């Protein structure tokens, strides 16, 4: 990979995020570290969504489903681990766990399975219809979670203690940030590699002109479904991390606001740009934090700022930084 402008910008964004966290840690400002962690986690979710939305053109308005599933798997496993009861006994016994290394694969697997089912059905539609079917599936899960009393319903599920990671004290904000940032970096490298591979080429081609890809012997459905599942898994991982950040999960993680917010991170940062979602999430969280102190009506200011960005910076933040609109 040559060190072109995009790469420099991407590295700079990551460096900035890490520097913020470390700086805040040194200054003893734990909350800023938490905010940076939140940015890394939402950035990760955005990176996951971007794979489907940015590269595959699959505008999913239901990724909160995977985010929430990742979260609930984490919450459920952790709460069962603390009570020592099995999660399920049929068809085989699943015990709770409070080891992140055990939880992550489960969260990703569950989210991936959900993405497989939702994707397999939703991908029969396209465009705006796809937006709405994915939303429909997420809403079904949302309403289910609200009214299902077993794990708290609308009240959500607290598990009080962050899950553990070998050799680290996950409760220390900076150490937990390190975990999240590392996973974010891994996901970024993964996305970079995948999108530049043959598969990535086919995925982007299918986004723009599926009729043409079919004529070349490539089945867009299979390509898209694969991307959708990968995307769901990454978002599921992000959900798991978010659950651990708050030591709490609730149906809010499954709501359409969440889907919309992840989407906003991606668009704000720059659709189909590698680090776009990270930049988008970081900016959004920064604005939320800074503006929150300005006025009770801070959300109006946030809205105006976002408007300014869409109107005057096509291509999102990364678009401004690299001075060009998106290309292939």
């Amino acid at each position, binding site marked *: 990979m040559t060190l072109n402008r995009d790469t420099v910008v991407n590295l700079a964004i990551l460096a900035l995020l890490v520097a913020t966290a470390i700086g805040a840690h040194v200054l003893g400002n734990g909350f800023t570290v*938490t905010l940076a962690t939140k940015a890394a986690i939402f950035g990760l979710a955005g990176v996951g969504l971007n794979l489907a939305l940015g590269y595959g053109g699959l505008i999913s308005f239901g990724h909160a489903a995977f985010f929430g599933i990742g979260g609930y798997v984490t919450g459920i496993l952790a709460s069962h681990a603390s009570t020592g009861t099995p999660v399920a006994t049929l068809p085989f016994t699943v015990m709770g766990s409070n080891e992140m290394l055990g939880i992550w694969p489960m969260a990703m697997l569950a989210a991936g399975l959900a993405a497989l089912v939702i994707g397999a059905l939703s991908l029969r539609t396209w465009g705006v219809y796809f937006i709405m079917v994915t939303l429909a599936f997420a809403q079904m899960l949302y309403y289910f979670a609200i009214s299902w009393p077993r794990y708290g319903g609308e009240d959500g599920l607290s598990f009080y203690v962050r899950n553990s990671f070998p050799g680290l004290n996950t409760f220390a904000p900076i150490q937990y940030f390190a975990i999240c940032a590392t996973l974010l970096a891994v996901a970024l490298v993964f996305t970079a590699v995948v999108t530049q591979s043959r598969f990535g080429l086919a995925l982007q081609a299918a986004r723009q002109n599926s009729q043409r890809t079919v004529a070349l012997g490539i089945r867009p459905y299979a390509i898209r479904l694969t991307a959708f599942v990968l995307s769901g898994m990454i978002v599921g991982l992000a959900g798991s991390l978010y659950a651990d950040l*708050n030591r709490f999960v609730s149906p809010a993680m499954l709501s359409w606001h969440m889907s919309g917010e992840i989407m906003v991170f991606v668009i704000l940062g720059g659709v189909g740009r590698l680090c776009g979602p990270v930049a988008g999430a970081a900016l959004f969280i920064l604005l939320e934090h800074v503006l929150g102190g300005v006025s009770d009506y801070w959300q109006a200011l946030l809205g105006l700022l976002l408007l300014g960005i869409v109107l005057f910076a096509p291509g999102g933040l990364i678009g401004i930084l690299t001075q060009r609109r998106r290309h292939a």
Partner: protein
Amino acid sequence: EPVKVGMITTLSGGGAGLGVDTRDGFLLALKNAGEAGQQVELVIEDDQQKPDVAVQIADKMIQSDQVDVLTGIVWSNLAMAVVPAAVAQDKFYLSSNAAPSQLAGAGCHPKYFSVSYQNDNLHEAAGAHATDAGIGKVFIMAPNYPAGQDSLAGFKRYYKGEVASEVYTQVGQTDYAGEIAQIRASDADAVFFFLPGGMGIAFMKQYAESGVGKPLIGPAFSFSQDILPAVGDAALGVKNTAQWSKDLENQANAAFVETFQAEYGRLPSLYAAQAYDTANLLLSAMAKADVDDADAFRAALAQADFPSVRGKFRFGPNQHPIQDYYVREVVREGEVLTNKIIGPAMADHGDAYAEQCKM
């Protein structure tokens, strides 16, 4: 020595009204306390009615602002997200509204006080009132989520008559024609409903239009001063239960209602009253003990030695109120709609979960 208080409440979005009243009630108490009130250093943050945001703010208040006491959360689901972790980190939490059953029973904690009620209380009072009023059959209805399920359970706990029909509605539902048709078709003598916020407004308006005319009973939430003006005449005459009303006759309440109106130009709501009491409870404890001496401070809080706008007020063993509940009726006073107490519902009532609390 000043006490640092973190207030997490909803100040933006659709639910902001309740948070604003909570904040304003609390601030008013501090102001009215003069010198003593300045001993409280208050940090206020907007939780946007999102549980995850509330958790993060709590983390921040605990880690960065190093508050001693937390308060302000309006919604039960946010409370469930914040309170257990906060008290586990040795902070006091004084609830000015939300009081879910988990925190009253097995999940009770020495550092957690509910200054409002336990969530079921108003529904229980409504059940007791329905029994007292000799209503034979009731149609009961609530949204399908834990607070809704608790509310119907609470009502039934003290209602001795027959439940004609039990209906769960959708959270956030705005059209109740279907439920109204069921009410019309049922042989119930009255309707008990718990529909907070916009849901209640919509239901009552539509119910009034429908001409069904069976009497309504509800907890105070749908008849609180923040909502009543929006419901309008449709609410007139409806009986509702609360532990407070602006016409409760005691000195503290008179002063509260008067200063609130003077300060903010509107009538106070239940939430404002509860926050006002919360602040005064805090001030009373500060006068007796140092917040750094957790045991002494807790003991001072538990005494509840402050002039409550509810008149008499004390804590039960699980640090939830034992207090009187009243039946109110919505009336028109000049231009505005408001509530008038028409009688007692329950006296010295605690809650059903205190036994499970091992503290």
